[in-house]
């Protein structure tokens, strides 16, 4: 890989990492959900420093063009991130359900108490 491309990639990855860190610092992201983003950044960083790794890995799993390996890696990471998002949404849905149900139960209790007070 030419040095200029390596430098370009490095700058890109560093930008990416600093955006994640900045968002974390400003509490726009929760740490528990950013692990998969850090993983992808780490992967990119490794590739930037050891481009030969891509060739070796491609050969090892039978991909003739190293660039195709990158495309697959991008797809895999995207899938992982989308999956993690779906899991977060599912968790949030369950929590919303619980909260809604509890709010309905509490509202009824308050209503009954108020009626009791009004009548007594």
């Amino acid at each position, binding site marked *: 890989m030419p040095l200029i491309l390596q430098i370009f990639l490095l700058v890109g990855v560093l930008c990416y990492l600093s955006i994640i860190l900045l968002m974390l610092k400003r509490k726009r992201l929760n740490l528990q959900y950013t692990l998969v983003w850090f993983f992808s950044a780490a992967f990119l960083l490794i590739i930037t420093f050891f481009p030969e790794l891509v060739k070796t890995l491609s050969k090892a799993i039978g991909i003739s063009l190293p660039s195709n390996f990158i495309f697959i890696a991008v797809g895999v990471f995207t899938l992982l991130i989308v999956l993690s998002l779906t899991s977060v949404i599912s968790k949030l849905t369950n929590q919303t359900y619980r909260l*809604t*149900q509890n709010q309905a139960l509490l*509202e*009824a209790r308050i209503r009954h108490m108020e009626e009791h007070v009004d009548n007594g």
Partner: protein
Amino acid sequence: MVIKVLIIIPAYNEAGSIKAVVDTLIQNYPQYDYVVVNDGSTDNTLQICRDCQFNYLDLPINLGIGGAVQTGYLYAKENNYDIAVQLDGDGQHNPEYIERLIAPIIKQEVHMVIGSRFLNKKGFQTSFLRRMGILFLKVVIRLCCGLRLSDVTSGFRAASKPLIVLFSQNYALDYPEPEAIVTSSVNGFSVVEVPVEMNARTAGKSTITAGHSVYYMIKVSLALLISRLNGKAHWRK
């Protein structure tokens, strides 16, 4: 010992029928308590409950039938009821059969009783396509847990106290009826059916529309298999 029975009435946009349903219960069946669960209706179901001073729970957002019924189970658990009966707010279910539904639980023979419209083949029998769907789910449930039931999507059912606790923690969000059967069965609770007659709904429309039926069948079958694979739920007795 007096057995406390709660009738859970899930209601989503049932302004046209809810008053008649609840009034019948209050007048003819005062021995049972009831609670209407208004599932974020956009019509004036809530207003009717308020004006008539019904006992109701008001969900501020629409959770769907599973979330609404589960709220009823939470209420039953909180108020220490022995038996919970689900009765639709659309007038499909005839309260005269409640006694028949709860009898096997009172005798402590079983934990869950389902009102089946197909056992005696009387009353409203629903459309051909829907019966085909039910037939398919019947087979899936039989393969899943070996239960021979005829009306697996019936929402007219009764649950014992231990099941109330289980359902209050563990209930499917959408299309929960068949899944609740599997949940009960894999957790070691017996399920039986008793014959009932159902009416065609007086107002409102079914939650399952024709366009959704394929999605419904796939989703429910998958849910049944997963709850079968899950085995016993982790729940606090």
